[in-house]
């Protein structure tokens, strides 16, 4: 599959998940963020950028469904310089662009590396989708699935590929739990039952420590990637 291993450094670009860039350098770690509409994916990306931008060279790819809202939110919030944020158009099918036909996203990632690289980390944010949407391993090295307490505390129990298999499950907006009648202990127990040893983070971006736990998880992924794991 990896056509470029025998090529010299001036060969055409890598095909998908190759760990090396065409110039022979190690490419950036790619982390996908998926989850239902309104669960806080973009807010989490923004918070991660603020937490990590001083220690890492990073960039963001957004997959808006029919607008550039997510990319524009990140630009407006000035979490990164504009040349480090790019939007992919997904033709009414956000899950297709991150799972079945990843070519537009791969190109966005590679163009960012060419334009502002070398990069340590690229965050790929999916368009809001359903509980079955997961990222292809050809596109990202690890994925975070973001749900929120207001979407119903039965989501972890319902499972689905995102909840069950994501490398990190984030349960967002915990500050809203008392207002929407969500039982955090039940969500934690259901998530544990679905995910066994895979990690789960409960977070509220409106209070301390905010995105700190997710940022720590990202740092651990980066350390493993840098070590060639």
């Amino acid at each position, binding site marked *: 599959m990896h056509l470029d291993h025998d090529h010299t450094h001036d*060969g055409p670009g890598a*095909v998908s998940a190759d760990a090396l860039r065409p110039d022979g350098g190690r490419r950036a770690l790619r982390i996908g963020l998926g989850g239902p509409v309104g669960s806080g994916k973009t807010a989490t990306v923004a918070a991660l950028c603020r937490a990590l931008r001083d220690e890492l060279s990073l960039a963001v790819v957004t997959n808006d469904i029919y607008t550039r809202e997510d990319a524009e939110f990140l630009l407006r919030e000035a979490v990164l310089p504009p040349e480090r944020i790019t939007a992919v158009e*997904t*033709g009414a*099918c956000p899950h297709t662009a991150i799972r*079945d*036909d990843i*070519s537009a996203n791969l190109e966005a990632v590679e163009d960012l590396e060419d334009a502002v690289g070398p990069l340590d980390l690229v965050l790929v944010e999916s368009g809001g989708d359903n509980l079955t949407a997961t990222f292809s391993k050809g596109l990202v090295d690890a994925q975070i699935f973001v749900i929120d307490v207001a979407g119903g505390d039965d989501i972890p129990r319902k499972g689905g590929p995102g909840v069950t298999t994501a490398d990190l499950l984030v349960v967002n907006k915990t500050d809203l739990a008392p207002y929407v009648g969500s039982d955090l202990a039940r969500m934690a127990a259901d998530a544990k039952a679905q995910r066994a040893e895979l990690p789960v983070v409960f977070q509220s971006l409106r209070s301390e420590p905010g995105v700190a736990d997710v940022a720590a998880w990202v740092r651990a992924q980066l350390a493993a990637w840098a070590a060639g794991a």
Partner: protein
Amino acid sequence: MSRAALLVLADGRFPAGGHAHSGGAEAAVKAGRISGAASLADFCRGRLQTAGSVAAALAAAAALGIDPVALDRAADARTPSPALRVAARKLGRQLMRAARATWPSAELDALAREFPKGAHQPVVLGLAARAAGLGPVDAAYCAAYESVSGPATATVRLLSLDPFDATGVLARLAPETDRVVDRAVEAARRVVDEGVDALPAGSAPLLEIGAEIHAGWPVRLFAS
């Protein structure tokens, strides 16, 4: 040569980026030119006979081994709209990636080196067919069929059109598609002796204008 390779290349799920493009259908729906199965058929017939026939001839010529750089220039000359040129190169780049992974070939590698940001999609399609062991007729069929299947699929999403009606439109266009392919392959064979000027230059001004308007919309479902 494997005939089954044609099914792989022509499969709408071949991961080459086409799902995000409507082939002009989104602009035509908004302008009221596509409002149901009958007008979808009219739109598709127009696209098949213009952009589709040019794409089919380019793909067939590339499959015959005509210089892809010359074909790419010919494609530019037949694509007045800058937005459509961008879309064609984007799709060409995405198809290049999928084709190289699927049918590794020195010719595809060379074209990727020549056009790192993408050559016109029909040119890449023809070379991909060649790499898959297919011939000019197969390449022309892929290009001609794609020119109508893309808008039909997009219209199902845009208008909630009955998917059986949309598929029926494609089926009824089949004999016409056959004739477009015949003429495209004939033209591509002439290119061998006469050069790229033997390629057809059919044009649909409303497709070009619609693409330019569509590219300026702040909110849209499809990239083109």
